[in-house]
Structure formats: structure tokens, C-alpha cells
């Protein structure tokens, strides 16, 4: 099971075994690069971002609590943050550079952590497709485009308050769809 193997890899990475880091790369490198490339559209910078993200895992494996979240999700969140960081450096909002891309995740519940670790790409694509179009659009502009909520409001001509709630409600809906799809709904509501 991928999740159990991830925990072993994480332990080996904590023990400073470079082969374990390369094994992690073999497992998730194509996905990480796919994500960085989707955001940046430039293979050279995307590779830089991917390498940076794996090195961050290498340096910070000790601080990651495998009981609290999925290693894959952590890695990809670092890739995402660094890629968005690069997009923003291309000249929109220098003040956003101060964001810490690896702020520790706050209390993802154990069950939700399990869901995240076992999600399949197809499940997520299906759930995203079920979102109302305007919610999906706002989320994608933020996630893949690196736009802030006010930039999304400007670009779409939709009031900021509406964008805020589309982002929030869209994500909540997405989470519910994913949890329901993985058959974990009862466990989630029971915690």
C-alpha cells in the first residue's frame, strides 16, 4: 500500500539515505513535475521547483509527522507553493514573496489524512468536475494561476465578496465530494 511505503520512505529520508529520496522521486517526480509545469509552463523553472521541493523534504523530513498527513500531499503542497511563488515573482506582487511555503499544516484530521493519502487522480478530477462552474473557475485561477482573491475579482469583474465565498464554498464542496467518494463519510462525521 502506497501510504505504508511512504512512511517507510520518510523514515529512511530522516536517516539521511539519499536512495530513499530518489525512491520518493521515482514515485512522485512525474506528478510533481506535472504540477509545476502546469503552473509555470516552463520546463526549466518547473524542474528547479521540483528539485527544491524534494530537497525541502530531504531537509525537513524530521519535522513532518507522518501520522498527521500524507507525504504525497505534503510534497505536492511544497511544489505548489514554490511554483506559485515563481509565478508571482514574474512581476505581479512582490509583497507576496514573504509567504512561508511550508508553514506546518494545522490539524488535518487523521481520517481526512488517510483519505488524502489514498485518493486517486481520477476521483479528484471527477469531484472537481462536479463543482459548480463558477466555483471551479475561481479555485483554478487561485490554485493554478497564483492569483489572489482580489486579482480574481478584478479579472472576472465579480465582486470580491462573491469570490471569497466561491473559494470557500467550492473547497468545502470538493472536500465533501472526496470524502463521500472514498466511503469515509461516516468516519469523518464521527470524529
Amino acid at each position, binding site marked *: 500500500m502506497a501510504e505504508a511505503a511512504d512512511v517507510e520512505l520518510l523514515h529512511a529520508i530522516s536517516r539521511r539515505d*539519499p536512495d530513499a529520496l530518489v525512491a520518493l522521486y521515482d514515485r512522485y517526480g*512525474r*506528478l510533481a513535475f506535472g504540477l509545476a509545469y502546469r503552473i509555470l509552463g516552463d520546463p526549466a523553472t518547473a524542474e528547479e521547483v521540483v528539485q527544491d521541493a524534494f530537497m525541502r523534504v530531504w*531537509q525537513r523530513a524530521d519535522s513532518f509527522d507522518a501520522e498527521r498527513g500524507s507525504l504525497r500531499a505534503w510534497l505536492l503542497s511544497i511544489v*505548489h507553493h514554490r511554483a506559485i*511563488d515563481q509565478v508571482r515573482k514574474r512581476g505581479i506582487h512582490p509583497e507576496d514573496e514573504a509567504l512561508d511555503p511550508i*508553514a506546518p499544516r494545522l490539524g488535518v484530521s487523521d481520517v481526512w489524512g488517510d483519505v488524502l493519502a489514498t485518493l486517486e487522480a481520477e476521483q479528484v478530477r471527477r469531484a472537481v468536475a462536479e463543482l459548480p462552474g463558477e466555483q471551479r473557475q475561481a479555485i483554478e485561477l487561485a490554485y493554478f494561476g497564483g492569483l489572489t482573491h482580489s486579482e480574481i475579482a478584478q479579472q472576472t469583474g465579480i465582486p470580491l465578496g462573491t469570490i471569497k465565498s466561491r*473559494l470557500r*464554498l467550492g*473547497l468545502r464542496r470538493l472536500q465533501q465530494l472526496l470524502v463521500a467518494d472514498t466511503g469515509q463519510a461516516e468516519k469523518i462525521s464521527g470524529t
Partner: protein
Amino acid sequence: MAPENGYDHDEVQSLLGAYALDALPETERARVAEHLPGCAACRAELAELTGAVDALALTVAERDPSPELRERLRLAAVASLDGAAPGTPLAGAAPVPDAPPRPTAQPNIRLVANRFAPWAIAAVFLLFALGMLGWNVSLRQQVSAASVALQTTSAAPAARGELTYLKGRQVLILDVRDLPALAPGEVYQVWLIQGSTPIPSGVFAASSARLALAADPANYQAVAITVEPGPLGNSTPQGDKVVVTPLTALGG
């Protein structure tokens, strides 16, 4: 609930989606972050929203990076390990065009990985060998290897270390510890002595270092370390010698 920073609970809550997506300008982001430690309800909602954001990464199509990225990553990981430095100067190479330097916790990793182009093939090989040496596998039992103690000079009375030759890989590992602290701007420079010609073979600035040299001792008479001006060292040794070790015992 306490609007001391100007944001009440409802305002923060309305921003949680944007916060989870990292889509807030810094001032708003900081205010949400301030509110969270005292508000379990917001933390719980944020955990769910963050999970949904994390899942979005899975919707992209997987894509093949260049095949070199895998070895670059291994190289960077090995190079970051304690004392393992490649036997070549890192400074002075061309900057990387596409990626402006960012403040990261490990700037040297980028240097090692990105400034190696001419050395890439050799360095990958060497560091791979070094990497294996450091792990639970005892390479000495698997690969024919021989060691001699370093001979230090009166300029480095406390220094010690050894040279190990991995015959199967033609890699000479220089492991040196407890050299005297350098003055600012100085580096230690390693030399392979061929006949009477010292060949510059890398610099380092720490008092302990482990370097891999692509060298068969049969082709050299000695290894030396001198103190030279940094960051690149000299083309011929000018400074004080701290180590001079003949390679005869290793086949030199």
C-alpha cells in the same frame, strides 16, 4: 472572536478558502494566521479546506522531467550530507538564467546542483560513490579499498584524517578533520602532485571536509593541502602546507 486585530471571527471565516489556497495578500494572510491559534472552529474548517486544496494537485497530468533531474537530485542530497563536498570549486560559475536566487534554507544545494555543468558527469559518479560510502553498507567490504593516514605539518598540529582509494571506482576519498580555522577570505586547497607538478584539485573552507577526487594514485606521487586565497584558490600552491601525504602506500 476578539477583534483586536480588526478582524472578527466571521471575517476570518470568510477568508479561509482564499487562505487555504494561498490567495491572500500578506496583510490579510497574517491576520488570519493570527486568529487561528485561538479559534478551534476556524482551524477545523481550514483543515478540511486545506485537504481539498492538496487534492487539487492530483488533477494534473503526470509529466516526464528531463532524465538528468533524478541524478541532480541525488547529487544535491549527497552533497548536503555532513562533510561531503565535491572536489571542485563551486564559486565563479555562471548564474542560472531562469531562476533568480531565492532565499532558501540551503543555498549551497542550489550551487552544487546548478553550477556543475562541466563536472556533472564526473561529479555525479563521484558523489554517488561517496554516498555509498557513508551508508550502512560498508563499502570497504564490497569494493576493494585501501587507506593511509594523512601526514600533517606543524602548521596543522591537531589535524588528522585519511585517504582512501576505491580501486573499482578510481576514486580517492580525502577525509580530513580538525584543520586550524582559516582567516577570512582564505580557503584550503587540495593538490594532486604529478611528478613535480601540483594539480589544483578542489577547495574547501571548513576545518573538516570529505572530498572525492577522480584520481588513480598510481598516476600521482602525493596529495597536499595548502592555505590559499579564496574563493577559488591558486593555480599553483603559494601558501602554507598543512597536509602532505605520499601516495606510495596506495599504489602511487
